[in-house]
């Protein structure tokens, strides 16, 4: 018998939690971005596990589209990081505070 669904869901939960923690505590915008990718991958893992468990190809199709959207998101996000770095010469999120009071 194959691995139970719940093991994959617990692993995906752990990965999502680690990614969310990283977004909250890391200061380098590039590392925060990597943690967002980690969260996306945790969701992908859960989707594929559910697709296998429910015997429905819809979950795997969703993962396919998530991969495409993630690629587009990374391209635009890194473009924004480059544009910010040109202006501020810093990749630390805390130093981008001129909107604050």
């Amino acid at each position, binding site marked *: *018998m*194959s*691995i*139970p669904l719940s*093991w*994959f*869901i*617990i*692993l995906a*939960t*752990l*990965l999502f*939690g*680690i*990614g*969310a*923690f*990283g977004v*909250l*505590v890391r*200061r*380098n915008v*590039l*590392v925060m971005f*990597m*943690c967002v*990718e*980690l969260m996306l*991958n945790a969701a992908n893992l859960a989707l*594929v596990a*559910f*697709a*296998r468990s*429910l*015997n*429905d*190809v*819809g979950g*795997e*199709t969703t*993962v*396919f*589209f998530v*991969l*495409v*959207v*993630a690629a*587009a*998101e*990374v*391209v*635009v996000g*890194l*473009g*924004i*990081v*480059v544009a910010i*770095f040109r202006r501020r010469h810093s*990749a630390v999120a805390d130093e981008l505070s*001129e909107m604050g009071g």
Partner: protein
Amino acid sequence: MTSLLATVAIPDLLVFLLGALLCLVGAVSILTVKNPVHAALSLVMTLFGIAVLFIELQADFLAAVQIIVYAGAIVVLFLFVIMFLGVDREEDLAVEPIVGQRPLAAVLITALMASIVALGLVGHFEVGPATQTGMLHGGAGNVADLGRSVFTTYLFAFEATAGLLIIAVVGAVVLARRNNPDDHVAESQVEELA
């Protein structure tokens, strides 16, 4: 626990444990390493672990795409930007910009994960009709299932992603373009606004 272990085949268990270990070690080291380049390499480790788990779930095509798109393209893009900007130096992890930020984040994330696990324990995943988009066969038939689904049910979404990728590429070029030196007027206006 022993009864659970008895129901799982040993090769499946080994592949799952290997994939899970790769994922978790990579994910934790993204959090703990100081150098962004090392974080990107840890991300490759996690993505590879996810691909191993996809193979364990018989999603062969997605495992290959995971390696090619994520580990191949996205992480290389990350490394390119890190080295292009020259931020590949050590970061002081001891700095805590908001007092109590880390314990608070840990509490919040633990509550989040506990609520997900609790939902899984009390909920019962009963869905309506078994499938809207088609059955999923194991092994090599899997790619055919995925292809049939993408090019029939989700054809419009598939075409829309083509547009999305074009828009993303054009947007990235516009964002990352170096400003024209003759373009003083626009630059000074932005400076005034800033």
